[in-house]
């Protein structure tokens, strides 16, 4: 992907498909290292499936033979000398604490680092497409952060759907303002 934000969208969609009620997208910049975490409370994957998702010929879809979300994310981080790890707990293993935790690290000063791109649009796309599931987005840099928590929005908005036009407009402006202030 030309931008990591598109890759994030692809992988976060997997979380939603796994039935997650909350998907967290956490970006942490520390010195020259960017850590991306996508954490969900979805159905989780067995060890065999975890091993196979980095294989480009594995997919949960039936329409094609290959699924490229995780393999491309792995490539994007490994080409900056970073790494990708996946931890997952299935519903059977732990009915309360199941879910999947994908962690990818990137050396941002590496010449092959893929630009992060427009993560705000990624968040808008996720909320618009899945207004009934929750997302927590936190991007930390230099001691400040950009944050969006749809659970907080839902509490204030009560019955207004998150993907209604006005709410989407507001979320876009809210993220933009926070990014303008991020050092």
């Amino acid at each position, binding site marked *: *992907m*030309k931008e990591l934000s*598109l890759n994030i969208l692809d992988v976060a969609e997997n979380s939603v498909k796994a039935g997650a009620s909350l998907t967290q997208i956490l970006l942490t910049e520390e010195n020259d290292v960017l850590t991306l975490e996508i954490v969900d409370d979805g159905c989780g994957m067995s060890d065999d499936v975890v091993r196979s998702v980095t294989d*480009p*010929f594995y997919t949960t879809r039936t329409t*094609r*033979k*290959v699924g*490229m979300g995780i*393999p*491309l994310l792995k*490539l994007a981080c490994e080409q900056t000398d970073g790494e990708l790890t996946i931890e997952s707990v299935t519903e059977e293993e732990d009915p309360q604490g199941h879910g999947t935790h994908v962690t990818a690290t990137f050396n941002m000063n590496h010449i092959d680092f893929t630009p992060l791109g427009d993560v705000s649009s990624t968040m808008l796309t996720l909320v618009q497409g899945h207004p009934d599931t929750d997302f927590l987005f936190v991007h930390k840099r230099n001691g400040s952060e950009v944050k969006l928590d749809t659970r907080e929005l839902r509490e204030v908005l009560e019955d207004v759907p998150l993907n209604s036009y006005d709410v989407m407009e507001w979320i876009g402006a809210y993220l933009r303002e926070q990014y303008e202030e991020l050092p």
Partner: protein
Amino acid sequence: MKVKELLAHGFEALALPDGEREIDGVYIGDLLSWVMGRAQMDNAWITIMTNVNVVAVASLADTSCVILAEGVAMTDELKDTAQAKDVNILGSSEPIYETAVRLAGLLA
């Protein structure tokens, strides 16, 4: 032109499970997700990427062959996966542009 016919013109067979495939046009690119959406069926795809994802992208886009330019080294993993997934991979010692020019002459 068939993929296997390139072997007589300075291209090296790195994995050739289906040399009878016809080449129709050429696509060049290294950003795999970009290639995935743009390479056309039966294109010869020139790249310098040797990650195993190359085989998946070639398979998805249904290219006739992958041509690794600049003499980049092939990994065993890539070779085995290409054989298993029926993806042709050729090697060219020349840079990408020269490889493309040579192909243009052959396909004209």
